[in-house]
């Protein structure tokens, strides 16, 4: 395993961003900051997924060059993770948007964004 390869660096960066995102979710009291944490969490995950599909020195899975159309499996990167990420990004958008609307509505109720002020339901 080569530590200084592009996919490995991406993988590590992805993991770190993911952890930073979780850290944000777990420690920030501001609801919007927590949502930002989620957004980072998503970004980190996406980077990881794409990095997993990468194959060294291969081209994108778009067969617009004739030479790519034979023995394709050895010439392109994995298209599946890319497809998954596409889906994941869109899902992320939906979830984030919904969370933000929730945040907005919560703020509307108590005029504060501190998550600790929303403890009416417990036990």
């Amino acid at each position, binding site marked *: *395993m*080569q530590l200084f*390869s592009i*996919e*490995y660096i991406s*993988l*590590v960066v992805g*993991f770190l961003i993911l*952890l930073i995102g*979780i*850290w944000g979710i*777990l*420690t920030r009291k501001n609801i919007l900051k927590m949502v930002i944490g989620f957004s980072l969490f998503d970004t980190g995950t996406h980077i990881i997924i794409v990095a*997993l*599909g990468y*194959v*060294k020195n291969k081209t*994108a*899975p*778009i*067969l*617009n060059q004739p030479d790519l*159309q034979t023995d*394709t*499996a*050895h*010439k*392109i990167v*994995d*298209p*599946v993770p*890319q*497809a998954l990420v*596409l*889906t994941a*990004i*869109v*899902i992320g*958008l*939906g*979830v984030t*948007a*919904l969370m933000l*609307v*929730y945040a*907005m*509505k919560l703020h*509307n109720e108590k005029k504060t964004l501190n998550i600790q002020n929303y403890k009416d339901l417990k036990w």
Partner: protein
Amino acid sequence: MLRNSLILLVLLGFAAAIFPLLHSYEAKDALTGVAEHYANYGKEEVGAANLVSAVVVTYRGFDTLGEVTILFLASAVIGLFLKASETYTKDTRSVFFKSTEILVTASRLLVPMILLLGVYIFINGHLTPGGGFQGGAVIASAFALLLLSRPQKHFSHKVISVVESISGISFVFIGLLGVLLAGGFLDNHILAMGKFGTLLSAGAIPIIYILIGLKVGSELTGIVRNLKESQKEG
């Protein structure tokens, strides 16, 4: 502080838990599993030059249907959420900054171009990078720009939802056509495969992508619009 140290501990634990995943990562030099099949036979089976599109629209088309549904639901929920306080006060202020003459003019010029770009992106989804989602997002950003520049502009909820509905129903319908005419739900072979690499190829993929583009575009626009037009405080 204690709380934060505990959280740090948990996070470190989590990091330790995912470490084996990183650790067992090994660079590949060729595709394996289903990807190999897609790479080798995707061209014949689906006929789309962009293999990602082939996967997204056909092989994993059902996921894409779900994905569209998610956006659709998110938009519906946001609508439901914000509609409860239905008193529309036309918010004429811009969200970020005062709408200036330059912006208005620029948007007049830019919006049609951006729209066109969006359409281009999803029509060519099976050939070049991009597709319905990206195109839809671009279209939505065009409308967002419109909203920025002319906050008083109120576009009809009706139109958005009609476009959304029709494209959605058509998507499902095309999927069902696959059951009736071809090998299964969302099979793209209901249309001729055409010549590989041209616009009219890859069976139903372009059509599906157009529908997705329209649907995603209208859904995202709907979200933005809803956010904008919700009651002043929200």
